């Protein structure tokens, strides 16, 4: 069923992982210029302007799991609460810059091995106690603790040693890294890195005590909950009085709730174009769009018999018409990727890809002694674009003598039974992770989220070299070399980057998305 919760069966929740690296490369919400939408004046243009003070925002969200927790480090955290309840050391501005949050300032040593963060001294926890450096040390250690099984542990552990984090003063934290990393601070902006009180690992799961703009009023896993304004918040005071959360598993149910004016905003629901049209047709609701917010790869499992041969992978990459697929699946609310998983907005982006060429595709197949190819492509209602993408590919690849059979898998077990198991399936990621994280985490040999089971020593060496390179221009060349290898070797079939369409009430004003998160401070209700 659409949007049913992920479950803990899936060791590292897919959902959390998708946004695990929402970092500096994040593309800010593009509030205008979505040219191809049915009504460009409506889609992607949420209200802006003065919000009246106060009000209660009602958010519908898909429940992550029956065992959701408020521990930010956990793979099962109820993430919509996090930004309201907690603060991080640093966070990302809408323009993608690293800005202070709990840390007033930070420094790195020349070798990028030692990082020092100076913390605010005026911050209190929701329970009244004061925030200190010990809380930070504890939080990072908690993330690194194997028992926590935090998705962020895999990101930090290669160069962070929990025992090498110290608090020389009440408001200073020093990280002694085990290997140099010039972008360490930005990794602390991940939402798993929200700071929790020292010693709270056992209680944070339901207490939700943080330093954020809102305090927890109630919470039940996969159920309703609420937060109210934290009057003692150290930053800019939020507009809203309170936020109420409710869990709705069915995507259509969430949309109905919005249309029936039961909720003001549906979180984590990327509307397909048709649904967005329905929402737009209502006087009560509107749709906001974030440019290229999600990328939709169709991983070909290299370890499978079907795709062990690079030419076959290339044949598939050449076999479909990306224009057509993008149009069908997203009605044009997308950017063609040309099978390069790196988004064009990325600084190190290489403008190179495998173009639509069915004849080339056929000749590649012929080279393998094949005149046609029959494959199953798996899809699910997990995300509304997965099935249209699969169906569009199915239609488009026919001309290249590649016959796809679409198999619908249950949304709930999709990321346990299909992802990284079936040779060909549709999936998606949130864009916005740094290129280093993207390429290392998803394509490096043996990495935990290597969904294509891609393994190429030359590619891996190129990535290592890039990391070790201090010179920016040189680093860029190396990352672009890696992209070229990846594209040519046919690791990933990537038709397009899609805009994310979010439904919200037309009463809501100043809605802005920050990757996977939205701005809790400025959002409010319009003056009528």
């Amino acid at each position, binding site marked *: 069923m659409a949007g049913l919760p992920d479950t803990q069966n899936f060791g590292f929740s897919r959902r959390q992982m998708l946004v695990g690296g929402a970092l500096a490369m994040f593309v800010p919400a593009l509030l205008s210029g979505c040219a191809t939408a049915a009504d460009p004046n409506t889609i992607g243009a949420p209200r802006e302007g003065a919000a009246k003070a106060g009000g209660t925002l009602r958010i519908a969200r898909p429940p992550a799991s029956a065992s959701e927790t408020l521990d930010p480090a956990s793979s099962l955290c109820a993430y919509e609460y996090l930004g309201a309840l907690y603060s991080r050391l640093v966070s990302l501005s809408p323009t993608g810059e690293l800005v202070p949050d709990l840390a007033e300032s930070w420094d790195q040593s020349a070798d990028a091995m030692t990082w020092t963060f100076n913390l605010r001294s005026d911050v209190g926890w929701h329970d009244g106690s004061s925030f200190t450096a010990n809380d930070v040390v504890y939080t990072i250690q908690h993330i690194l603790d194997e028992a926590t099984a935090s998705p962020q542990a895999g990101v930090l552990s290669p160069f962070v040693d929990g025992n090498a984090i110290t608090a020389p003063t009440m408001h200073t934290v020093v990280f002694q890294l085990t290997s140099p990393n010039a972008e360490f601070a930005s990794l602390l902006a991940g939402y798993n890195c929200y700071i929790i009180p020292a010693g709270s690992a056992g209680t944070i799961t339901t207490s939700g005590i943080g330093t954020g703009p809102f305090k927890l009023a109630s919470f039940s896993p996969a159920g309703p909950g609420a937060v109210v304004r934290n009057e003692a918040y150290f930053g800019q005071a939020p507009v809203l009085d309170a936020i109420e959360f409710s869990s709705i598993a069915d995507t259509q149910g969430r949309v109905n709730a919005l249309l029936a004016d039961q909720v003001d905003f549906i979180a984590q629901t990327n509307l397909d174009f048709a649904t967005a049209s*329905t929402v737009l047709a209502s006087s009560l609701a509107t749709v906001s769009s974030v440019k290229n917010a999600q990328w939709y790869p169709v991983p070909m499992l290299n370890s499978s018999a079907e795709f062990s041969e690079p030419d076959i992978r290339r044949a598939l990459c050449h076999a479909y018409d990306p224009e057509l697929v993008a149009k069908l699946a997203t009605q044009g609310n997308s950017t063609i990727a040309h099978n390069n998983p790196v988004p064009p907005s990325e600084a190190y982006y290489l403008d190179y890809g495998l173009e639509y060429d069915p004849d080339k595709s056929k000749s590649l197949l012929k080279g393998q002694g094949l005149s046609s190819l029959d494959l199953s492509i798996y899809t699910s209602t997990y995300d509304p674009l997965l099935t249209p993408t699969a169906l569009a590919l199915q239609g488009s690849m026919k001309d290249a003598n590649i016959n796809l059979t679409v198999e619908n898998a249950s949304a709930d077990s999709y990321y346990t039974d299909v992802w990284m198991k079936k040779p060909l399936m549709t999936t998606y990621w949130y864009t916005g992770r740094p290129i280093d994280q993207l390429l290392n985490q998803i394509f490096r040999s043996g990495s935990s989220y290597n969904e294509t089971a891609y393994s190429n020593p030359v590619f891996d060496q190129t990535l290592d070299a890039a990391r070790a390179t201090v010179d920016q221009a040189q680093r860029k060349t190396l990352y672009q070399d890696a992209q070229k290898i990846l594209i040519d070797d046919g690791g990933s079939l990537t038709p397009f980057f899609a805009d994310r369409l979010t439904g919200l009430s037309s009463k809501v004003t100043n809605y802005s998305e920050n990757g996977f998160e939205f701005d809790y401070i400025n959002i409010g209700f319009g003056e009528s």
Partner: protein
Amino acid sequence: MTVAEASVQTRSRAFPRLVRSIARSPTACVGFGLIFLHVLLALAAPLLSPYDPIANDAMATLSNPTGAHPLGTDALGRDILSRTLYGGQYALVVSLVATTLAVLLGSIIAGIAAFKGGIVDDVITRVLDSVLAVPAILALLVVITIFGSGPQIIILAVVIVFTGGVTRIVRAAVMDVLPNDYITAARARGEGMFSILVREVFPNVLDIILVEFAMRASWVMLLISSLSFLGFGANPPTPDWGLMVAENRNLLSIAPWATLAPIVALATLIVGLNLAADGLSKSLGVDRMKDVLG
């Protein structure tokens, strides 16, 4: 006389009798008319459909009803009319095969249970009661989770779920027939169980089995469409009515026909089956509501 002779005789008489029964009842006429129409449309779908039911058309997504697309298109530009017409094939084949198997199996089990009586009957009845006690939807979900989806699996699941109910009804009907003197005569002649069941019993519960069939078929169709709706049934892009409703229900306000066409198709077919069951039971003198108890 051989078994074949007997069955030929029975059939040659039963068939015109059935036709007469249908003709006698206006209800049955309308019902069978609707079913016949659906079968016809499903068979003629390749001829009638203006488009390939699974062909996407990026240029004509969410089109309103036009000359080119009489019922419009869905979000992938697929022709609603073609999908609805082809949808009948899937619905009819899956549900009719599933129902036929369930009714056949149920009737055989029922015959054996009723004829043997005693402990055999008790065991069969109790086991089937237990299957019935598991909600159909749970049983179906479990079967589909075990074996995956696909038409064969759905048929298997339906057979598992519905055989018990059929058995219950047919068993009661066989029990009603068994005390008849012609059965006693056959027993006294020393005929075997299967001979008696085939020659004497089944021809006389055929009415009930037919009504049962029509009724179950309507339930099966409802259930299969519900499964598709829940995402456990047909795989996209199969033109299945339940799936079409699930795919397009969010578009009711902008592309109503994408949802309404399969609903209307499904509803008319089920109304047809129900009317056929009603009419048949009336003109064959079967107490149809007994079925509901199964």
